[in-house]
């Protein structure tokens, strides 16, 4: 396994008390594999990724437990300088908002070249040549001319390509993409996702794709981890989950997608709202919104039950859910 997150816990100190953003998350990615982490805002999907990358704001954040094993080492035990060497070179991240992730006053060429001068000790001239090569690779037209331009001179899709180029620069073993196409239009989203999938195949990278879009997940993922209120509620190979979800939350998300045969009817809607992380309900965090909830759900937090060798569900009644 390329990356293994084990029982990760992250808290934030807020004015309203302690927000438990991540409560015992475990997942793994192999080389060449795509894991989709699916969840709504506040589910802890991005915070988990930030903890893995080591870019969590501490304070107010605090990792209170768990391990992040990457290529055999626990990253959480490394010193900051050691982590810096891992970050960028061996694992890289692509963010949602390319415009605010790029420096507006440095040309994109210099920002790309920086990867090589800092991590590889290359000369500025060689690094600049590498930057052009990278821009070609992510199919930015007229790379040689555009390398001198600034982020605002690029369209949203092109900026996201630059982010991808930057992440790929040092050919890392793992890429974490946090909502990489959420800010893009569908036709551009299709271009960017195709590019990302192609480069991943070529370089046999592990990819963690963080998203709330069930469509994107179905298109590219090998495995899915569904998160709710800081926990993984279901984890399974992509085909299994869409065929028959084993957690009522996953089922609710899938059922709320408008389908052809439901035209003119009411959409299925999960009732209520996601919980506040400072006041996560006791027992199963999903119980106030769950159609299957019974007394045991209000008191006992469900473990991740083993549904099959490759599949887990954190629902006391997963059998019932699986059978519809």
């Amino acid at each position, binding site marked *: 396994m390329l990356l293994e997150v084990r029982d990760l816990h992250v808290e934030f100190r807020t004015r309203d008390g302690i927000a438990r953003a991540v409560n015992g998350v475990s997942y793994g990615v192999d080389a060449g594999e795509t894991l989709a982490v699916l969840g*709504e*805002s506040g589910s802890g999907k991005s915070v988990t990724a930030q903890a893995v990358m080591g870019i969590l704001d501490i304070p107010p954040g605090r990792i209170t437990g768990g391990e992040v094993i990457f290529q055999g080492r626990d990253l959480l035990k490394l010193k900051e300088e050691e982590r810096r060497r891992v970050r960028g070179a061996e694992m890289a991240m692509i963010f949602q908002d390319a415009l605010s992730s790029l420096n507006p006053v440095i040309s994109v060429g210099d920002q790309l070249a920086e990867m090589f001068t800092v991590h590889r000790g290359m000369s500025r001239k060689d690094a600049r040549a590498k930057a052009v090569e990278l821009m070609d690779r992510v199919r930015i037209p007229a790379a040689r001319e555009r390398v001198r331009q600034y982020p605002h001179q690029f*369209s*949203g*899709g*092109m900026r996201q390509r630059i982010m991808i180029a930057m992440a790929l620069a040092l050919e890392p073993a793992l890429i974490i993409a946090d909502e990489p196409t959420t800010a893009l*239009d*569908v*036709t*551009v*989203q*299709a*271009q960017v*996702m*195709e590019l990302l999938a192609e480069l991943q195949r070529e370089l046999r990278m592990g990819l963690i794709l963080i998203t*709330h*879009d*069930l*469509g*994107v*997940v*179905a*298109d590219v*993922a090998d495995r899915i981890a569904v998160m709710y209120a800081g926990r993984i509620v279901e984890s399974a190979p*992509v*085909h299994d989950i*869409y065929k028959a979800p084993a957690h009522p939350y996953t089922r*609710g*998300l*899938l059922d*709320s*997608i*408008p389908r052809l045969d*439901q*035209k003119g009817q*009411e*959409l*299925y*809607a*999960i*009732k209520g*709202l*996601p919980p506040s992380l400072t006041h996560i309900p006791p027992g199963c965090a999903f119980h106030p919104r769950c159609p299957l909830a019974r007394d045991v759900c209000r008191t006992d937090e469900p473990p991740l039950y083993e549904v099959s060798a490759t599949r887990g569900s954190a629902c006391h009644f997963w059998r019932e859910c699986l059978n519809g």
Partner: protein
Amino acid sequence: MAEPILEVRDLVKHYPLTQGILFRKQIGAVRAVDGVDFALGRGETLGIVGESGCGKSTVAKMLVNLERPTGGSIRYKGEDITRLSGRALKAVRRNIQMVFQDPYTSLNPRMTVGDIIGEPYDIHPEVAPKGDRRRKVQELLDVVGLNPEYVNRYPHQFSGGQRQRIGIARGLALRPEVIVADEPVSALDVSVQAQVVNLMDRLQSEFGLAYVFIAHDLSIVRHISDRVAVMYLGRIVETGTDTEIYEHPTHPYTQALLSAVPVPDPEAREHRERIILTGDVPSPTNIPSGCRFRTRCWKARGTDAETGRWRSTATGRWTDAETGRWRSTATGRGDMAAPRPVYGTRTAVR
């Protein structure tokens, strides 16, 4: 279609680009909306889809008179509202209300929910006499599924979905006949989107509302719309009933747009035809000659010919594509296994 309540003809909005400080001269224009026609029937939902920058939000703003069109007409019950002012305009505005995209910035953080929803009554006091307002506001809260006791709370005390309900309640306050909703669910979480779509559906049948529903999420638009218009670079390139547009798209852009939408079914992954468009949308300051889609169109031929606009008299459906282009698809000579376009009896309108 039922008798149209709103009729838009050749609607144009150009924003001038100027140069010089002392002697300003116009050096060009952002052609945000460049000749849009559609009609909206009573109690009907027209979905408008398109990518960012296609002009769909500008159309919305012109419908509620937040922007003055550069040209064309918007007829509400036969009366051109772009020429109205004063009292007559105020009366029309009452009947066409808007729900905005972002429930976080479209509600004033310093006003209570009661004041926000009741504010339209300050402008149109004839709808609710002063003493009656609080009761009316509470009724509206109840209608959109919020606790009527929340009138004194502030927007920050609500979640995104609840805030959008407040925005909808404000839109309903004056009992309008038309609601223009610009991306009403795109800022919301997936599990909450369905709740708001259901609410809008219910309110439509309850109050006989007509919706102009603008969104980029094609599956939600299909669910809620009776008819759909696809916009590209300031123009509607294709319009039809939801089934026509989604099952038998005849414009290459519609085909590409639909094929780019990720399908929530991993089984479909291997055997789906996907049209990946190359390049970006051209700038609206510099619209390509001829068909405006030709720079990204995989069927484009080397002509600059102005596109024909064709109308099917049977369904009122038309497409902006040059006939030759989609006829080749229909005869199976196209380079894509596209669904066959449906032909009606067509007569050229332009």
